[in-house]
Every structure is written in C-alpha cells, then in structure tokens.
C-alpha cells in the first residue's frame, strides 16, 4: 500500500519519513521554508549578512576605531566606502560593526522569545485569575510606548554608568520587546489547551511539564520561530533607536552607532552619503531578510496563503 497525499487538498505532508527530535523538525522546517521563493531569498540574504559579520570578527581592512585618514573622503580604492568625518574607514566600521549588531538583534530575539514563550504558556496553563493578571501585565507593556521606555531605561542605564557593554541595550530591548510575543503565545496556548489531544494527554496522566515540552512547544514551534524573527527585527531596529537617541554606549562600533555619529556629524547635510547609507542599507537588509523569512513561515503555518504552480496534466500523458 502506498501513501497518498490527501486529495481534498487540506494538508500535504512529507511522505513517511521518520522524524525524531527537534533537529529533524528544524531540518524539515528549513526544507519547507526554502520551498518558498520569498523565504529562500530571505535565507540567502541572512546567510550572507551572517557571513559578512563573521568575516568582520576576524578581519577588517583597518582598525575601525582608529582615526587614520583624511576626513570625509568619498569612496576610493584605499577606503572602499570612504571615510567618516572623523577619519575612520567606513567599510572597516561596517564590517567590524556587523557582528555586534547581529549579536544584539539575535540575543534580543532569543531572550525576548524565551520570555514571551514562558509567560505565554504559563498564562495559558494557569488559573483564570492568574491568567487575567498576566494578561493585564502584558497589556501594560503593550500599551506603554516602547520609545519612551527605551529612553527612560536607556537614561537609567547611562545614569548608573557601569561599563556593562551591550548588556543594557539588550536588556532594554528585551524589556520593551517581549510583550507582543507573549500576547500571541498566550492566546495560542489558550486555544491549544482546549484541544482534544491535550485533554487526552491530561486524561492518560501526563504531567503538565511533559505536555508543555512534548506537545505545546512542538505545536507552536512555527510561531516561536516567527516570533524570534520578529523580535530580532525589533532588536536590530531598536538598536538603531537606542543609539540614535544617544542612550546607548556610543563608543562601541556597530551599525547603530555608525548612524549616530553620521547623524551627529550631519552627514546628510554635508552630503556624506557614503557614511550614512551603508549602515542604513545593511540594517534594512537584515530586517528585510527576516521579514522575507517570516513570509515563508506564514505560508507554512497558514496553508491558505500557500500556492503552488499550476501543473495541469498534459492531455497526452
């Protein structure tokens, strides 16, 4: 007997491949993700940005911190992307600043998603009152405008002026960025918990922990990944905001501080486009790649968005 895909077109699945553990799930999700053209482009884009950043960890043409060159030179063969108004090499800064930027974006994505998942699942699994309290708490964070919180927390961390590196930035972005995900996870968990297969597990005596880890986490996996992408995007965007507002540590080299210095030097008024555009474009490319990846995920989780090319049968076949 052979397996058929369900002809009513409801769901199509990969054929009987044995899937065990999360690695294979990730692998198979990746494969599905790459089937979509948009997410494929996003994946390649992200991969190249990551490669770029890895190169930047080990090699930059010049020291990105040093003031080595003539000021505000347009792109030339010595300085591929010209120099800043302070005489730093823009390309070196771009290369060297990639890793911290990605690090921030992804750690915000990771931590934010983690908190969101924990809060969301807890809310979905707890008593009615606790759930309502958590809901109100999530709403507080949703309603308070993020930029204000960034400014307040940022000023606070600048105020205590301990040298914490990127930690304050990440903390601020996680504080302001977890709530969206938590709301999603809360409502998804609430709906999943009511499903028969969870009730069934309760009846056969599974512990809550086992249900969460084995079943709920697995069921919301696409949403977790999608939330990770979104929170990472928020991280990248938030970094630029933090630096623009001057509440981050401006002495570090990343794409956000590059913009900060360029804007403070009024590079857009002096016409130094080579200073302001590269970091902007890199950040938007990063965001763009994550959005594209999300597009694929959306279609994965929501089959009604999915399309396949018409493959009408050849009449002669």
């Amino acid at each position: 007997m052979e397996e058929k895909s369900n002809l009513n077109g409801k769901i199509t699945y990969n054929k009987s491949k044995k899937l065990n553990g999360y690695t294979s799930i990730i692998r198979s999700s990746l494969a599905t993700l790459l089937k979509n053209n948009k997410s494929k482009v996003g994946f390649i884009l992200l991969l190249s940005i990551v490669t770029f950043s890895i190169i930047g960890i080990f090699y930059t043409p010049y020291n990105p911190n040093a003031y080595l060159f003539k000021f505000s030179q347009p792109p030339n063969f010595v300085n591929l992307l010209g120099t800043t108004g302070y005489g730093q090499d823009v390309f070196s800064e771009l290369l060297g600043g990639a890793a911290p930027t990605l690090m921030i974006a992804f750690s915000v994505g990771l931590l934010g998603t983690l908190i969101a998942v924990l809060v969301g699942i807890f809310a979905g699994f707890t008593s009615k009152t606790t759930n309502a309290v958590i809901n109100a708490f999530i709403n507080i964070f949703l309603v308070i405008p993020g930029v204000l919180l960034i400014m307040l927390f940022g000023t606070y961390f600048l105020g205590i002026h301990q040298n914490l590196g990127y930690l304050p930035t990440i903390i601020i972005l996680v504080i302001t960025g977890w709530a969206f995900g938590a709301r999603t996870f809360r409502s998804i968990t609430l709906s999943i918990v009511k499903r028969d297969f969870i009730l069934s597990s309760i009846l056969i005596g599974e512990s809550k922990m086992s249900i969460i880890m084995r079943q709920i986490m697995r069921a919301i996996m696409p949403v977790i990944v999608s939330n990770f992408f979104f929170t990472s995007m928020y991280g990248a965007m938030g970094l630029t905001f933090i630096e623009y507002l001057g509440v981050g540590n401006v002495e570090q080299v990343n794409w956000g501080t590059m913009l900060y210095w360029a804007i403070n030097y009024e590079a857009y008024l002096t016409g130094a486009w080579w200073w302001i555009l590269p970091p902007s474009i890199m950040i938007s490319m990063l965001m763009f790649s994550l959005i594209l990846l999300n597009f694929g995920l959306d279609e994965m989780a929501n089959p009604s968005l999915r399309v396949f090319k018409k493959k009408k049968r050849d009449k002669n076949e």
Partner: protein
Amino acid sequence: MNELIRTENLTKEFETRTGFTGISKIKALDNVNISLFPNEIVGIVGASGSGKSTLAKILVFLYKSTSGKIYFKDEDITKIHGKSLKKYRKEIQMIFQDPYASLDPYHSIEWHIKRPLLTSHYSGNIDDRIDELMNMVKLTPPEYYKNKFPHQVSGGQRQRVYIARVLALNPQILIADEPVSMLDVSLRIDVLDLLSKIKNELGIGIIYITHDLNTVSMVTDRIYVLHNGEVVEDGYTNTILTSPHDGYTKALIEAASDPYKRI
C-alpha cells in the same frame, strides 16, 4: 455484581451572560442518575445540547459538577483531586468524537500508545505491549503503523489508535463520546465491533454516547435518553426502541435514518 460507576443527582450549571443583567445559569445536567456495570455497554442518547458530552467530561473530571455525587465502585469520588484523581483516571478513560483532533499531529502512532505505558509505569516489556495493543485493535502489522503519523492513516484507523492508547492503561471504564460519528459509513461498523469486542474480551464497562439510535441498537445493552440535561427514559435498549414512552424518545426514533424508509 456492583456498579463500576454510579452517579447520584448529578447536576451541572453553566454561567452565561445575558444582556444587561449579567449572569444567568443554564442547567446542562439536572439530577442525572446513571450507573454502569462491568462487561456492559450503556448508551446515553440525546440530541446535541442534551448534556451528554458534559456528562462525559464530568465523569473524567475535566469539568467539576455543581452538585450530586459520583461513586466509583461504591466509593464517593466526587471531591477527589491530586494523586487519587490520577489513580482514578487510570481506571476511566474517554474516547473523543473526532480522531483528527484527539491525536497529536506531531507525534507518531507509536508515541501515542507508548506515553500511557510510560506514565503508568508499565512493568513489562513496553514494545511487546505496544504490539499486543495494536494487534488487539487490528492495526496489523504493527510495524507498518508504528512510525506513521495520525494524518497518514484513515479516520477509522485513527480511532483504533486512540482506543489502543486508552487500553494501554487497562481502564475499567471507557467513555466513548460519539466515537463513530465523524467516520465514513464503511468504517463505522468496524469500530463498533471493536468496542463490543473490548467489552466481551476485557470485561470493560463502556458508556457509549451518541445521537444515533441505529448504532445504539447495535451495540448497547441499556440506554439512558437524555433531554435538556434530564434523563427522560432509561432501560434495556430493545424495550425502549420497540416501545418508547417518552415523546422525545419517540421523536428520536422517528428521526433515525433508515435507507428502507422514505421521507
């Protein structure tokens, strides 16, 4: 022989919101008294909204009753919780209406049967037991099905997987909530036969909940007719189906579909 399970004036009220006044109460179950003996199938019949699913969920403690008592082997278990609830749940299991929904789409069939064995700390060889259970529900050969996922098998097979899953716990009571209504006509009879077989071979008491009098007449020994949360008629299946007293029961019999009848 003593009853496996017995309810005494079981009542369940739901709160609903109505207009300005706020909360009003709806009785989903109203003083329901039912009992189940080992080695029998009891039918609970009613149209949708009659409270039959509520009854099932109360019996497995997914809902709490508003008042009334539940006895398991003459022991009052109305207020059990924690460990004793866990212990009790091993004895009573429920089969859901929709086998698409009651199996976790992300786990294999083997996983579904293995989990209850693990949670109940099954002492013997787990793999052998899985094979045994799968053979019992006629998922043969077991190797062919083990690594399949729920969406890869038919509705009837899914329902059998589910039955194997609950049998793994060796329960004394099974509550089957419309177990065949979502299945294709050609598959229903197999599942119903399986239920009869379980009753006969394992001596399990089964509460069969349905709106379909045809299947009731096929498998059950006794029935309770439930209407708006009240038991309007109960007794031996044959007696009730041939000479119903209550108007509601009559309407149900009248509405039962039969290819040899004409509308």
